[in-house]
């Protein structure tokens, strides 16, 4: 975290100035300014979290209000961690996470590298490439379902055009083998621009003189790429991976619209499974425990990752 301007600002207002200020005291203003935000954060972020933790130890069902709520201790947690179906959902999520990040990093970095060649009109084309990530994932996911239709869909038609297969011979959303890839394709289409933008910021942060020095030392272009470009972009790239990782771990809207978790449960990511437990089967207590497990998992993985990231940055 960059502390210099912040700490300078926090220790602001020399006493000589402070004495001359009219109106409310700084302390009063500070609380008036921060108060409503803190209240809202407590109400919408912190209080629900605590409530979820509480619920996770009970057998509460939100659709049966009158029923007696029993404290079941850690039973919800035990049941979730020993449930083999949930491990299948975790596997589906891991598959989705790994491949989306793989393709987005690969394509995103390549694009950023090419855009950084500063050809004419590169900012306009960058904006066009960025468009998909600005759109509503649910609406886009719904429409991709149309593109993926086996007989009439554009996607199948294009694939058929290039491979010579019958366009009705494969179902992207209906087949157990292809469905996990169909969600990877749409997510990659949508979020590659994000990785690209972060990489671009990284590439633009490399000062020219480093390359000039390398040129003087007669380092080949290839060598410059591996000893200057890659190491200097790496912290940015890792940051992009962190953000995409967290976002895709939570993935819900796009995939629920595309496949609804099917066929069977091949694309049932943890969030979709959680929604089923909480809002279809109404096992509120059980789902709360599930939610806490997911939160702790992301939080733990992200913390470890940030540690690694800081090590890379320090180098």
């Amino acid at each position: 975290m960059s502390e210099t301007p912040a700490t300078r600002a926090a220790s602001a207002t020399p006493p000589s100035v402070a004495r001359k200020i009219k109106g409310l005291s700084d302390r009063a203003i500070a609380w008036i300014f921060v108060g409503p935000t803190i209240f809202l954060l407590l109400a919408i972020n912190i209080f629900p979290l605590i409530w979820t933790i509480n619920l996770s130890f009970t057998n509460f069902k939100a659709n049966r209000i009158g029923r007696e709520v029993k404290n079941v201790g850690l039973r919800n947690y035990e049941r979730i961690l020993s449930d083999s179906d949930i491990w299948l959902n975790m596997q589906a999520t891991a598959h989705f996470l790994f491949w989306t990040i793989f393709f987005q990093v690969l394509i995103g970095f390549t694009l950023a590298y090419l855009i950084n060649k500063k050809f004419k009109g590169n900012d306009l084309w960058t904006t066009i490439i960025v468009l998909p990530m600005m759109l509503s994932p649910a609406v886009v996911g719904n429409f991709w379902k149309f593109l993926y239709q086996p007989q009439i869909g554009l996607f199948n038609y294009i694939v058929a055009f290039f491979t010579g297969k019958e366009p009705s011979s494969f179902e992207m959303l209906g087949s157990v083998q292809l469905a996990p890839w169909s969600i990877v394709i749409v997510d990659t289409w949508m979020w590659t621009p994000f990785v690209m933008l972060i990489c671009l910021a990284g590439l633009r942060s490399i000062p020219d003189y480093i390359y000039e020095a390398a040129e003087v030392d007669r380092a080949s272009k290839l060598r410059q790429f591996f000893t200057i470009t890659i190491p200097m972009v790496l912290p940015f790239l890792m940051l992009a991976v962190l953000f995409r990782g967290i976002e895709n771990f939570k993935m819900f809207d796009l995939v629920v619209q595309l496949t609804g978790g099917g066929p069977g449960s091949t694309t049932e990511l943890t969030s979709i499974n959680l929604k089923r437990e909480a809002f279809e089967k109404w096992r509120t207590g059980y789902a709360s425990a599930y939610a806490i497990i997911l939160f702790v998992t992301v939080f733990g993985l992200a913390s470890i990752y940030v540690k690694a990231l800081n090590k890379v940055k320090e180098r």
Partner: protein
Amino acid sequence: MSSFSVTEPSTRSKWFAGTMVIIYALVTMVPLAWIMLTGFKSPSDAISYPPKVVFEPTLEGYVNLFTTRTRQTPEYLEANPPQTWYDEIVREYDMVIAGPSKFGERFLNSVIIGFGSTFLSIFLGTLAAYAFSRFKIPFADDLLFFILSTRMMPPIAVAIPIFLMYRQLGLSDTHLGMILLYTGVNISLAVWLLKGFIDEIPLEYEEAALIDGYTRFQAFYKVVLPQAATGIASTAIFCLIFAWNEYAFAVLLTSGTAQTAPPFIPTIIGVGGLDWPAVAAGATIFLLPVMIFTILLRKHLLRGITFGAVRK
């Protein structure tokens, strides 16, 4: 290019890079172009094989999106000749327009909730960011970071207690409830971004104003606010886009009066299966403002994305 520089790419590599990027951009636009095209197709053109690129455009999809229709007997149709161009379109299917559909309302809900929550996030967020930037607030950094980390929770997990809480408070399916919820989700990021912008404004300006007899509050809105305007604008765009696109909370917590467009658009049903031109028309109307917005405000937006990410 007159001056020679070792870091300036050669003309040939620029050409290559430009061509590759443009090809990618064109390919990536195909699905979006297809949405817009499909909106102007007739239902039979929309599902024809092979997919039609050239077709006779019609506004049927848009008419179907905004209206509900009923089938009528030939006698009735003959007795009541069509009054308007949209009447005529539905007459081809022996139908008459029964009334407006819910799409207009849902779209309006998206506008109200989107702008309402953006306004609230920015209003509260700027005040808080100023205080976090200029005053000593105990545990400020830890607090901000912890609150930011609650965004790692899947939205469904947050929705469970919010659902119960809103049911108790009577806030389910209300505009106010959704505005408060989106503000609560957005505000941590808004404060974080805005604090960054305000930190960069030199203290000297305010101090000069304070010495000149301004109150702290006057100094805030006459000196600091104008200077933070760009930062506030780009933060506002992020809040608006989040609220506009949000689906998970909307689908779980709203069903009628306060339902926004994203959960509604996939439910547009035609006669015999999904009416794809109407769905495409709805998607176009909903997505187009964001696309135009992105292109017009590209400088602020693109810088904002990287700034927001890299600052952490």
